[in-house]
């Protein structure tokens, strides 16, 4: 009997069909193909809800649906669909955000009179389909392939306004920087195949299971002369390269702020549900492989903690609303990485979920503000929008409270758990994690500050420009997605209130329960075992109440927000960050990260390429031309014999014949 999970491929295919429809006949459809996209993502959303309900009933699904390359005396390369609690949850997040982004686009793109809409909706459809394909992938190769398609779609959508100079450049940068990360990922994929002979995520023959078995001495795999754990660490870090690129972690985060050149709904999609989420999701998907390598975990935690702090500081001084949000995204994904490295698998997926809701909300809210401001994004030109656009304001506020991590909004619960898990495992025998924790904790203060600086500058005080006095109105298609996400940003944290569970003894950490189900090798229990056995996380069995760490992080968040309140919630705020002096300049210029990367591309690679070109033209081809020159010269000399005078030829013939006869005669001994 076909269960609902047999329809899982349709979740991916529906947006793909909308891509084809928009591409082929979008210009003949009303709204440039928007309705096709809305219908498709709505269909996917409904199917995803059904999937989640079915998975909640204890069912899972894993089936190979297509053999991409059938190996003769070699492994098959296949596409398969894996539905377990993690992927079901992600399907729901992606389809919900994609659906709302499609609806919002009606207001942001159609109502604003954009051209090229079929191209836009085709891009959105393909973007959604690629991400969904990535989410359900049951092996690393398939994941890589859809990961790359996600990259393509980001290129197409960031560069949507290709007639302007900025977007094509940003699109190129996004693809190139993430491609640099994907290079390592692809080497990792190939290495996984060479090591384990499979790239499957699930089952006893999957590569995480084989890695575990190899470390337990129950299986042997090719490790290219390294100790197994060292080799697994190397492979894990190679794959992590792709994660760092896509999830915009230091040092490959530079593409993401530039990606703001794309239309704002695309930013919402990129930051909340696709692309950037893909990296972190990948680590969660193959967590069993990382859990056996303490080195890889520590590196993930440090990259995450550092990125969280580093990006938060840059967010402090930005002028444009979308720039603040961009740096907040980098910072928040840092928290997820911190959690994954710190052994908080549930915390990371929890934060992935809450962040998807509140960041989609904030971007769509910013989009609404940008519509109102006639596409001016500078916060210093805004002010006082609160009373003119209440729906946007209150939903944006809900998202901001969640982002800042203020009780009881969604972000509070998830960020709290991220920090708690890292602290717990840090105190419990892995002191190295405490450094990463400290960075994450400090970033909470900055997050509170930049978030509310943004809120107050945009919505509070007096309008600072004519446009802000009389903003452009927005319609239902903008307000509806905001309302849905505004509610979710407020309440999504309820699914996993660990401190409350601790306090009351009630079993209300539903997300923990949710992720305990599914395939044996992919549950939180199994991951805890691995973390304990191979990385020593939780080895001492330390018990730590989540209340005090929670109170500390909430206190910091409130302090940061409070400072922003004092400085910016005034009728006519001034640029307080100017007091930072030289530091502000460094922060505003993003620690000169872009400069050195541009220098690497233009200052190093290009001159090397030009030198290679000179070498090629001068030396390599010079030798070729030299050889031919020598032969031409020789040929030219020989040609002089051919005078065209018959008597000369006769002389030459006679002399030649005589010489030959003489030679033969001497050699043959005729004259002896």
């Amino acid at each position: 009997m076909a269960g609902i999970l047999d329809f899982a491929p349709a979740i991916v295919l529906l947006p793909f069909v909308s891509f084809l429809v928009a591409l082929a006949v979008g210009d003949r459809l009303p709204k440039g193909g928007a309705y096709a996209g809305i219908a498709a993502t709505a269909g996917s959303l409904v199917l995803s809800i059904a999937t989640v309900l079915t998975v909640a009933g204890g069912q899972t699904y894993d089936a190979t649906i297509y053999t991409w390359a059938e190996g003769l005396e070699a492994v098959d390369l296949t596409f398969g669909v894996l539905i377990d609690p993690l992927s079901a949850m992600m399907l729901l997040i992606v389809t919900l955000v994609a659906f709302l982004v499609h609806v919002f686009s009606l207001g942001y793109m159609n109502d604003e009179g954009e051209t090229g809409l079929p191209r836009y909706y085709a891009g959105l459809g393909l973007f959604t389909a690629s991400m969904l394909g990535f989410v359900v992938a049951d092996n690393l190769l398939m994941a890589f392939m859809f990961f790359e398609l996600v990259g393509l779609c980001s290129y197409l959508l960031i560069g949507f306004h290709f007639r302007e100079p900025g977007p094509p450049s940003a699109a190129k940068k996004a693809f190139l920087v993430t491609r640099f990360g994907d290079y390592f990922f692809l080497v990792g994929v190939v290495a996984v195949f060479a090591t384990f002979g499979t790239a499957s995520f699930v089952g006893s023959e999957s590569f995480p299971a084989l890695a575990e078995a190899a470390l337990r001495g129950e299986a042997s795999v090719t490790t290219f002369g390294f100790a197994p754990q060292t080799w697994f660490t190397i492979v894990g870090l190679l794959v992590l390269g792709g994660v760092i690129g896509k999830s915009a972690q230091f040092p490959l985060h530079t593409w993401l702020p530039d990606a703001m050149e794309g239309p704002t709904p695309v930013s919402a999609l990129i930051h909340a549900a696709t692309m950037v989420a893909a990296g972190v999701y990948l680590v969660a998907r193959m967590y069993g492989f990382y859990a056996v390598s303490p080195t890889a975990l520590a590196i993930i935690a440090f990259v995450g903690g550092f990125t969280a702090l580093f990006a938060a500081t840059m967010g402090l001084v930005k002028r444009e609303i979308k720039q603040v949000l961009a740096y907040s995204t980098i910072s928040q994904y840092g928290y997820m990485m911190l959690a994954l490295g710190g052994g908080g698998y549930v915390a990371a997926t929890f934060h992935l979920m809450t962040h998807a809701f509140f960041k989609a909300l904030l971007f769509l809210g910013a989009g609404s503000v940008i519509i109102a401001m006639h596409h001016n994004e500078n916060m210093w030109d805004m002010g006082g929008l609160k009373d003119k656009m209440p729906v946007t304001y209150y939903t944006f506020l809900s998202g901001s409270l969640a982002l800042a991590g203020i009780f009881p909004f969604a972000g509070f619960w998830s960020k709290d758990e991220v920090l708690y898990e890292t602290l717990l495992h840090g105190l419990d025998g892995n002191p190295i994690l405490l450094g990463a924790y400290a960075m994450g904790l400090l970033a909470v203060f900055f997050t509170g500050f930049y978030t509310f600086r943004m809120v107050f500058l945009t919505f509070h005080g007096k309008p600072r420009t004519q446009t802000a006095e009389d903003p452009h109105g927005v319609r239902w298609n903008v307000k509806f997605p905001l309302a849905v996400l505004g509610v979710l940003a407020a309440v999504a944290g309820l699914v996993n209130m660990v401190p409350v569970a601790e306090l009351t003894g009630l079993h209300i950490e539903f997300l923990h329960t949710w992720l305990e189900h599914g395939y044996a090798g992919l549950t939180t229990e199994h991951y805890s075992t691995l973390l304990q056995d191979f990385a020593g996380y939780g080895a001492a069995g330390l018990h730590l109440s989540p209340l005090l760490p929670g109170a500390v992080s909430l206190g910091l968040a409130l302090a940061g927000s409070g400072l922003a309140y004092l400085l910016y919630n005034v009728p006519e705020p001034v640029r307080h960050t100017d007091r930072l002096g030289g530091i502000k300049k460094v922060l505003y210029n993003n620690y000169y990260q872009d400069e050195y990367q541009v220098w690497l591309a233009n200052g190093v690679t290009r001159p090397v390429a030009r030198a290679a070109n000179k070498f090629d033209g001068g030396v390599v081809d010079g030798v070729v031309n030299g050889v031919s020159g020598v032969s031409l010269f020789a040929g030219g000399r020989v040609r002089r014999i051919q005078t065209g005078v018959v008597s000369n030829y006769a002389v030459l013939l006679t002399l030649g014949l005589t010489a030959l006869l003489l030679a033969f005669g001497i050699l043959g001994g005729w004259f002896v």
Partner: protein
Amino acid sequence: MIIEALIAVTFLAALVVFVAPDEYAGRLAAALSALPILGSLWMWAQYDASGNALLGGSIAFETDVVWLTLGGLDLHWFVGVDGISLPLIVLTTILSTLAIVSAWTPITDRESQFYGLMLFMEANLLGVFTALDFFAWFVFWEAVLVPMYFLIGVWGGPNRRYAAIKFFVYTNVASLVMFIGFIALVFGLGDSVSSMRLPEIAQALRAGELGAFAGLDAATLKTVAFVAMFLGFAVKVPVAPLHTWLPDAHVEAPTPVSVMLAGVLLKMGTYALLRFNFTMMPDVATALVVPIAGVAVISVIYGAMLALAQQDLKRIVAYSSVSSMGYVILGLVAYTTYGVGGATFQMIAHGLISGLMFMAVGVIYNTTHTRMVGDMSGIADRMPLTAGIFVAGAFGYMGLPLMAGFAGEFFIFKGSFESTVHAGMPLFTAAAMFGIVIVAGYLLFAMQRTLFGPFSFDGEYEITNAPFHDVAPLAVLLLLTIVLGVAPDLFFGMIQDAVNPILTGGGL
């Protein structure tokens, strides 16, 4: 007899087009070249052979008759296909027709001669990929050069004579080196072979029947012959540093000729390397793995760096061919199913994608009369369809999954990383793979500067959408690239079947 029919029909078509009036020559050539496509697709549908044609596998559509006897050796008319050659035949027939269609706009004088030569070249290419006797093969191999020489030398750009002569002399000298190497092997085999049929020679060599010749003992002779043949074929591929004829030839050649040159003629080199060096002498190939994998990596990275330095769109694509063909060499020397199979698949994939890119550059050139990156910007505004296909093709070149290039490259990477011929293969592979970053660099930069941004163009030409018959071949190639990327098994199954016998025995 289908192979003879295929070659004969193409020769006849060439003759007919030669004498046809110039006005109709292009249309007539395209129509007639549809016949070989039908033939090759029929062969693909009917194909039921298995194994490697040189190593005792069954040979499809085989003909083997004694032609003449020369110095104790029988020369045979011996043709047939296996899973390695059949995909190349399909590629040749399809790409020839598309190249002919793409010539309709740029070729405006002596059309009947141009199209006649194109068909004449196609016929010889079909001969190269089907001949299984060395003599017949060599005749076709050399005969391909003649039409190519004239196509570049007559219809080429301002520096066409230099480019044509360089191409002809360089590849001909290479053929000579290769020929000497092969003939030395034949003499070394002595009486153990009775003909120059490639299967006979391949099996004798793999069975270790090579004797001493010209003062060289068998092992040295084999190595010397391997190196001579490798160098000879490497020029054709081309492998760095023997590549310098290629950019000159491409820059001067008209678009359709570039399409054939990059799409099919380069594959003659890799096909011959696979058939001769890597099939016949795996022991020498694996002994020389470090220098071979080394030049493969150098070709990939150095070719890509050179592409990065170019301002001429056509030169960019030309150098990137050097880079892409380096992957093929890496796959061949890996001696794994995915490595050698992937290399063969990459020949097809690169044929389609480089053809697509050269045509796309050609369509832009037809309209703007320039190919320099700095001369134009934002032309996507005026030629949206062409620009869209250009972008898609460029991503194909960058190895976007679900397009043919990714399949070929991934198979090669997988196959060479897990190869056991040398402990350093994972490092060689990882080094070569960095090409996927550089290729993204130069193509993205080129697209950003020419296709996107505010429209500007200094020339006096009106920039509008290209005519349908210019864009249609692009669309067909794009479609084929995607189809093969989604379903590589259309060819990859038969390729593996033909490749696997190479991987065992013969001193491996």
